């Protein structure tokens, strides 16, 4: 059989003996470092200066094009922001107008003063409305946050039968506006004595009851927190609830603040539900209903319009302050799910 290969060009092997092995190391040719060109700081600099950057003419054309398109974009943006800001500026200016209490055909007041603000607090139940709304906001933000976060955590972490369909159902239900069931809700709350002057409690119930459906954003955030953290904590001896408040909540701080903030702000702007449930009892108004009530008729509009504007400014203050304090969390909360940190 060995004869078969005789004619072929084959590399043959006899493994080396012990002495020959040591010779191999001596025979290794030394690496020729000197031949290689050394890369120094100077040689790099040289090669860099050799290729000098010469701006071509078409680059200039590109520059002008960019400038023109930027100008157009900025002009449009400026116009849009002016349109957007006008109502706010009007309200602010009107609230300081003293010479007339009704709507006038000009914007800048002829006589400046705090009369409207003083009247607002002394002649109307504005403080009560503020108090109502503030209480509403606090209660709703506490309860709703608890509901939403625990709901989201469960939907994010637990696998149970009907989980998917429940999520879909809630998503679809959430698409119907809340006031579809307005009359029913009113009758229910009326039966429990939660309308009129007690409408604050009725409203808390309305806002909080369905709040679990707002799980979507925070569930998305929880989904980005690695599940192995839960598992590690479970092995470390934590209960589900301990995992939730000791591990997940601190990690989800942005989304917790986002949830609190949105829950707190909702009652300040709600009108339909608040108006319907409070009905005609001014003690149960929130700020939106209360202020609207000031200018509900043509006569009251003539006497209260500037006061109404002052009310609008006052309402904006707490929300704005809160928002400015917490906005970095708010942004992190909204965008947090997008990029895993």
């Amino acid at each position, binding site marked *: *059989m*060995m004869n*078969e*290969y*005789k004619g*072929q*060009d*084959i*590399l*043959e*092997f*006899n*493994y*080396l003996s012990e002495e*020959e*092995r040591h010779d*191999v190391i001596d*025979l*290794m*040719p030394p690496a020729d470092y000197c031949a290689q060109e050394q890369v120094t700081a100077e040689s790099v600099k040289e090669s860099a200066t050799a290729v000098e950057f010469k701006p071509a003419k078409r680059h200039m054309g590109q520059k002008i094009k960019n400038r023109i398109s930027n100008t157009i974009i900025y002009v449009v943006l400026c116009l849009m922001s002016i349109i957007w800001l006008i109502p706010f500026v009007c309200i602010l200016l009107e609230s300081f107008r003293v010479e007339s209490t009704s709507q006038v055909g000009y914007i800048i007041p002829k006589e400046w003063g705090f009369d409207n603000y003083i009247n607002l607090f002394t002649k109307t139940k504005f403080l009560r409305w503020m108090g109502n709304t503030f209480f509403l906001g606090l209660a709703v933000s506490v309860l709703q946050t608890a509901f939403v976060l625990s709901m989201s955590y469960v939907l994010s972490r637990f696998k149970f039968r009907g989980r998917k369909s429940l999520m879909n159902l809630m998503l679809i239900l959430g698409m119907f506006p809340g006031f579809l069931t307005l009359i029913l809700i009113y009758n229910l709350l009326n039966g429990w004595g939660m309308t009129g002057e007690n409408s604050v409690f009725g409203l808390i119930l309305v806002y909080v009851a369905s709040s679990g459906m707002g799980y979507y954003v925070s569930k998305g955030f929880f989904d980005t927190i*690695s599940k*192995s*953290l839960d*598992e*590690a*904590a*479970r*092995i*470390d*001896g*934590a*209960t589900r609830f*301990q995992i939730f408040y000791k*591990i997940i909540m*601190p*990690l989800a701080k942005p989304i917790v603040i986002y949830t609190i903030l949105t829950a707190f702000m909702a009652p300040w702007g709600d009108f339909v539900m608040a108006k319907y449930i409070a009905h005609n009892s001014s003690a149960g108004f929130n700020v939106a209903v209360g202020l609207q009530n000031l200018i509900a008729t043509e006569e009251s509009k003539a006497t209260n319009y500037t006061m109404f504007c002052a009310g609008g400014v006052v309402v904006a203050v707490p929300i704005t302050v809160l928002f400015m304090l917490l906005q970095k969390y708010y942004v992190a909360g909204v965008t947090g799910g997008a990029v895993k940190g």
Partner: protein
Amino acid sequence: MATIKLTNVKKVYEKNAKPAVQDFNLEIKDKEFVVFVGPSGCGKSTTLRMVAGLEEISGGTIEIDGVVVNDLQPKDRDIAMVFQNYALYPHLTVFENMAFPLRLKKVPQDEVYKRVTNAAEILGITEYLTRRPRALSGGQRQRVAIGRAMVRESKVFLMDEPLSNLDAKLRNQMRAEIILLRKKIDSTFIYVTHDQTEAMTLGDRIVIMKDGFIQQVGTPNEVFEWPDNLFVAEFIGAPKMNTFKSELIREGDNYYVMAFGVKMPVDGIKAQKLYEKDVQSQEIILGVRPEHIDLTNRNNPNSIVCTVLVNEMMGSEIHLHVVTESGEELIVRVPTVDISVEQRSALVTGTKVLITFRGKVMHFFDPVTEENLLTREDLYSEVMGEEANEEVVSE
């Protein structure tokens, strides 16, 4: 003290789907280091997670120290676990991370301090105790994760691919550290990995899995020397075992293997055992490890001519990929100290070389069942003596 016994353990994720794990039977002795190894999706992690209590057990029982733990919560099983992605709590400092399980158990403050600093010292992370996990490197994070498991002082220590997220150099270093650590921790270990090197170097015993079934259980030596089937043979050892269709020929009392036109005698214990088992001539899959193939010369009657495809110079050895005249690709492991410099540089693509197999270390697999024709039990007694064989049987 902790023994773990898995009996007929089964895991089914979805009804009617193929079980992720089935017929899993294993007894783990106290303080034993067992490694589950297999390709991804073989069910090794699932089994570990069932032991941990993170996955429900679909069938069978798992016992820890004689107590069936099927329905116990993880926290009631007295286990510690290290995860692949470390799973450190990002908002807590290293100290608090390690103290977390103790705080949940309401261990007194000074005891917490003592245990955490002690573990940190063993792992060499004392200076990082006040840092957050974010400020640590991968290796340091993994040490913290191990530390968090250590302070528990639990009966069972589970590790789910703890080194997979580290770079190669750090992985080797941590592997050595785990071997040392193991001597300091008095626990039973189950370690999951897809890396056969880790399995071989760490395990007292290795459990090789594929498609939810155990393929073989044995010491690193046993699974390497006496693979039960083709899968184990190819999975264990790097570079992997060469396997190819061949023929086993029986001529009276003598056995030969016909491969690439060369008839090689099977000698020693293997031939004797084949004879004892009355194995007839048949088609087989022949397995030859790369280190059991030698480059040779024309004087060798059993030489096979091959062409070099790729020369992988690893330093201490060359992994030579060659192709036979019949088109079969083989890997040959050539120790660099064994050949001269001229020969090293001559081993380029296209060079023709002669190879030969070492007859005693060939493996014969049934082409249909892929089982090894000679099992460990067949050969064990001859190698280790009759006494050893009895021990194996009684196991």
